[in-house]
């Protein structure tokens, strides 16, 4: 087991109280696995990505633990996390288009970053150039400023930087949403290539875009309102989902070129519950066609078939 997350709870502090963005999430990712993480916006998937790398100022650790390669990951202690960041855990952020310092040449910025982490930047230069070429760019992008690059180029440079120290776990947050369709495909393929070349051992690919997940992910995890709904192999989630939410989600997508699970689901009446004071029991009950009295109790996230986990009383 490469990554194990146990009952992770991370809340947002707001004026009105805690927002339970991540409310007891348990899953594991195998060595070499690319896990897709899907769900509507606001379901907590980006929070999960941030929780595993760097808390933003309003996130608060509430409970749970994370184990990476048999070592506990001190996500609640930002200073202790620094030992893991970049080397073991890395992230391609949602905002990759603006992730690089606009006033520093890319190569220099990489060197600054590496040296600040105690790496020998000069010695790594050939490897950096090799990887830049690996993603299909000219090595002279290192002598340019970020504004001189197109969106797709920036995205790829950010991918190279994030994976430079061969992290065990890479979180790729919405890496395709800012790109046009042909570039999306190239970027997705690069992700697989990185895994296949063992530059990254495991990945969590967070996205709205089911078609990207169908391309790159080995497994897909579906989140709903701060909890996991279902996790299974990619073809199972797309072909034979079990959780009512996943089923509605998949069926509401256009058949060909499954895209944008993010759109408000016209097929599912109602809105996700407020996470400030979520209802007891299953969080999907208010919108679920199958809901009954039993759903007022919280359904456990259980393995109903080998490697297929579902949190629903109606499935088993």
């Amino acid at each position, binding site marked *: 087991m490469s990554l194990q997350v146990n009952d992770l709870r991370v809340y947002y502090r707001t004026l009105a109280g805690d927002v339970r963005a991540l409310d007891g999430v348990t899953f594991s990712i195998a060595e070499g696995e690319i896990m897709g993480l899907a769900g509507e916006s606001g379901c907590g998937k980006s929070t999960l990505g*941030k929780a595993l*790398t*760097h808390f*933003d100022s309003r996130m608060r650790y509430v409970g749970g633990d994370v184990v990476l390669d048999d070592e506990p990951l001190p996500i609640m202690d930002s200073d202790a*996390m*620094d*030992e*893991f*960041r*970049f*080397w073991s855990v*890395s*992230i391609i*952020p949602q*905002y990759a288009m*603006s*992730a*690089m*310092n*606009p*006033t*520093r*040449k890319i190569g220099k910025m990489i060197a*600054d*970053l590496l040296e*600040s*982490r105690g790496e020998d930047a000069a010695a790594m230069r050939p490897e950096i150039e090799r990887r830049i070429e690996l993603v299909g760019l000219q090595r002279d992008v290192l002598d*340019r*400023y970020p*504004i*001189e690059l197109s969106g797709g180029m920036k995205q790829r440079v950010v991918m190279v*930087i*994030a994976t430079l120290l061969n992290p065990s776990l890479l979180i790729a947050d919405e890496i395709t949403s800012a790109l046009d369709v042909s570039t999306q495909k190239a970027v997705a393929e690069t992700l697989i290539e990185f895994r296949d070349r063992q530059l990254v051992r495991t990945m969590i690919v967070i996205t709205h875009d089911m078609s990207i997940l169908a391309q790159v992910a080995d497994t897909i995890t579906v989140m709903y309102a701060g909890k996991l709904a279902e996790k299974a192999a990619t073809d199972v989630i797309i072909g034979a989902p079990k959780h009512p939410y996943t089923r509605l989600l998949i069926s509401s997508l256009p058949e060909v070129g499954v895209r944008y699970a993010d759109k408000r689901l016209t097929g599912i009446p109602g809105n996700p519950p407020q996470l400030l004071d979520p209802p007891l029991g299953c969080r999907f009950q208010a919108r679920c066609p199958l809901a009954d009295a039993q759903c007022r109790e919280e359904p456990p996230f259980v393995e109903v078939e080998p490697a297929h986990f579902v949190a629903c009383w109606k499935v088993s």
Partner: protein
Amino acid sequence: MRQYFARKLAIYLVTFFVAVTIDWMIPRFMPGDPVQGMVSRMSLEPEAANRMMGFFLGAFGLDKPIWEQYLNFWVALAHGDLGISVWQFPTPVLNIILSAVPYTLALLIPAILLSWVAGNQFGAWVARRKRLDNTVLPVGYILTATPYMWLGILIAWGLGSVLRVLPLSGAFNYSMSPTLTWEFFLSVYTHWLMPFLSLFLVMFGGWAIGMRNMIIYELESDYAHWLEALGAPQSLVRRYAFRNAVLPQVTGLALSLGVVVAGALVTEVVFSYPGLGYLVLQAIQNEDYFLLQGIFLFVIIGVLVANFLIDIAYVVVDPRTRVGMQGRA
């Protein structure tokens, strides 16, 4: 790059043109008859008043058609002819101004540059350090809200009048004659210190606050967050934030020049420091409008030149402008 500077230069030329035109228009198109008013306020003997009147009419060329007056104004300007001072008749205005300019520059240039550097350093250091932010920052706000002359008055009163450690007025001890001796130099220095200090402090507050705000914006920017997510130490994040936050401060430097010059003028008045500000006061009190107009032109030219220098500096510090100008982006 050439295009960028050509554009900037064009703006400055237009500005200069507009400013000179305003300068020319003011005595001619103000309500009432300024020449008449001016002469009558001089309370001269009738005969002298008539001669004065004739002098002014001739000097302004008011008897000629308006377009010719305007052209003549430019021609005279091109020859460095700013007219004759009324206050120190018959010294040419240009000479009076040229003898005052060094004092103003000696105050302004060190005060602007030092306060900019120190204020930026200080503001960056204070930003996001809670205790400092809450204790030191209010001082910055008080400083930047202080009218230049009032800070000057307070310093003059405290150091010059109550403690008597520094001389209250003038540019040097007038019992001395300017020589290249240590004593004279010391006298110049002690007279310079208080006006410099009051200019420096007010500007320092403004820069420190501006920098503190800019750094906070930068520390909340995407690239800073990503660096943190990759475990980069705060020293690197802050270094980048500082570099980027300095850029708008350079622009701010150009924008602040007008206000700063005005600040220097009133500070000179407080300390009777013989620079342009002191001249302005003399010109106003003596109704010396040639002098006033000449000072105005000098200040305009100075500010425009300074702006252009800052433009060049900006291109040097912000690589993006160079990249953009080469049309590679």
